[in-house]
């Protein structure tokens, strides 16, 4: 069956209309040496059955966390997803709903976003949350832009312990705006306050940190909020939402804006997306935050209803002066996070965080007992830690995969130390799996 509906006659008519003889004439600007000559190696046409078989065998080459035990982290984590989450979000009313412009027909979607926002405020200790953004990294970039606009300053100070992928996204977002990004150094896996003080001056719009940081370490921000607030700049904190089950909310140490990757809250890792950008702030920035916001109101009969609110910040009203280019949100992912948080509750989140904490510490000490491996930082950490080894990291990773274990992420992938790797342990890893990790590592090392 032909899927391109234009006939040769249609094509000729179109070519005539734009005044060219044939299709090749359209390519004349491209130097001949770059044009592909010969035949594409696509083979003959195939039946649907044949294509399905081919693609399935290609897909089978992938290894996913459903068959391999995963200790991969660096921003995306293998947390447990209660069955109620995928069951509820797959209801067609939610799965097909488009941007809820029309409050009259979108009360369900709007209410789910309002509840998500309320949960995020509760989780972060902030006053206002938006309806969500694309992912944690873009939420961080939007926070930096807000800070620069609010303070009318151009300098963004970021801790070197922030996820390097996120720093790269902040660079991409702010490059054309001529904002300057300054990296504050770390020492022993945590932001170094003296370096931060030196890098922060009256031109600084904000300080951005991540807690727990990229290396999994919990940081002490004593003095950081005072430092930046002293010069009327903003304190932007990225968190792991699960860690809030056990540790302080960022509002308790002076955050003005909190951003986070919400994938841990009921979303599959799914090879990198779609994820969920959490963005929350104090009330002071209500009219400066990016993205959509749902509010509660009353209809003409005095009944409770939900609407998009504070829209004068957005592109369709504020045009080029809008607070952000993002006028969309991750409604389905936000719904998943809302259902996840409601399912877990305060107690469930606490238990999940505790399990992450104890299980990761158990594995870290087991690995540390093996000759040639040591825990890099002697610092409090949450669920992720760095291992330094005298063996070749790539070899270790490959061998571990032969035993169906994703053992960690080599830090050299981020331009960091060649002899270190990052290990993440979630509540899903039981004692048996953790012991298998350590035992397998011992076996592998013997053979090296």
């Amino acid at each position, binding site marked *: 069956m032909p899927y391109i509906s234009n006939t040769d006659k249609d094509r000729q008519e179109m070519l005539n209309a734009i005044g060219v003889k044939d299709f090749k004439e359209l390519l004349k600007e491209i130097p001949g040496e770059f044009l592909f000559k010969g035949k594409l190696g696509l083979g003959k046409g195939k039946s649907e059955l044949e294509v399905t078989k081919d693609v399935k065998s290609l897909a089978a080459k992938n290894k996913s966390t459903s068959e391999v035990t995963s200790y991969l982290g660096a921003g995306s984590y293998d947390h447990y997803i209660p069955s109620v989450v995928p069951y509820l979000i797959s209801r067609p009313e939610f799965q097909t709903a488009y941007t809820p412009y029309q409050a009259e027909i979108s009360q369900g979607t709007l209410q789910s976003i309002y509840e998500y926002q309320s949960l995020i405020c509760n989780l972060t200790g902030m006053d206002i949350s938006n309806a969500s953004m694309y992912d944690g990294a873009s939420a961080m970039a939007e926070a930096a832009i807000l800070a620069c606009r609010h303070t009318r300053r151009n300098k963004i100070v970021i801790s070197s312990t922030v996820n390097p992928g996120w720093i790269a996204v902040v660079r991409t977002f702010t490059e054309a705006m001529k904002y300057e990004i300054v990296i504050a150094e770390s020492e022993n896996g945590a932001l170094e306050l003296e370096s931060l003080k030196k890098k922060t001056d009256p031109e600084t719009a904000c300080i951005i940190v991540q807690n727990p940081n990229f290396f999994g370490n919990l940081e002490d921000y004593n003095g950081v909020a005072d430092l930046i607030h002293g010069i009327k700049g903003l304190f932007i904190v990225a968190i792991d939402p699960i860690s809030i089950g056990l540790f302080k909310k960022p509002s308790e140490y002076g955050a003005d804006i909190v951003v986070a990757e919400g994938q841990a809250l009921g979303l599959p890792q799914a090879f990198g997306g779609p994820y969920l950008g959490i963005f929350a702030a104090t009330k002071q920035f209500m*009219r400066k935050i990016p993205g959509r916001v749902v509010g509660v109101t009353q209809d003409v009969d005095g009944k409770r209803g939900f609407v998009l609110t504070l829209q*004068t910040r957005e592109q369709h*009203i504020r045009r080029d*002066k809008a607070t952000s280019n993002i006028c969309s949100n991750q409604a389905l992912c936000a719904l998943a996070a809302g259902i996840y948080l409601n399912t877990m509750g305060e107690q469930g989140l606490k238990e999940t965080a505790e399990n992450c904490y104890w299980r990761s510490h158990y594995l870290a000490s087991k690995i540390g007992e093996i000759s040639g491996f040591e825990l890099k930082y002697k610092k409090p950490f949450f669920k992720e830690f760095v291992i330094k080894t005298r063996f070749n990291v790539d070899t270790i990773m490959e061998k571990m995969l032969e035993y169906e274990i994703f053992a960690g992420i080599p830090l050299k992938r981020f331009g960091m130390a060649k002899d270190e790797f990052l290990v993440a342990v979630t509540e899903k890893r039981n004692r048996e799996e953790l012991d298998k990790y350590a035992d397998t590592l011992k076996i592998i090392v013997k053979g090296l």
Partner: protein
Amino acid sequence: MDFPKDLLFTEDHEYARIADGIATIGVSEYAQEQLGDITYLELPQVGDNFSKGDSLGVIEAVKAASDIYSPLSGEVLEVNTELEANPELVNKDCYGKGWIVKIKMSNSSETSSLMNADDYKAHVE
């Protein structure tokens, strides 16, 4: 519609009332009428400096938001903080209680580029 004779106007519908080198700045009756019910104003800080044409704040109505452009250069001496709680004063009394900021002018010759009440009336009509 009211076009007070003691005021100078911009094409963007701000007005300035000048006395002793100090300009009281607000938006015209035409502007508030076009915007509709005003819900919020983003105001500058005392001590901020603006050049003529800079955005000194934002005026927000139910279905629109618009920059307030400074008609003159100078330093902000006073901000009408009443508007934080009662933004509707701009609708009710734009030339009186609905004033927005007072600026100490740094270049008095700039007034020559503004319109008088008659010219502004012709401009909006």
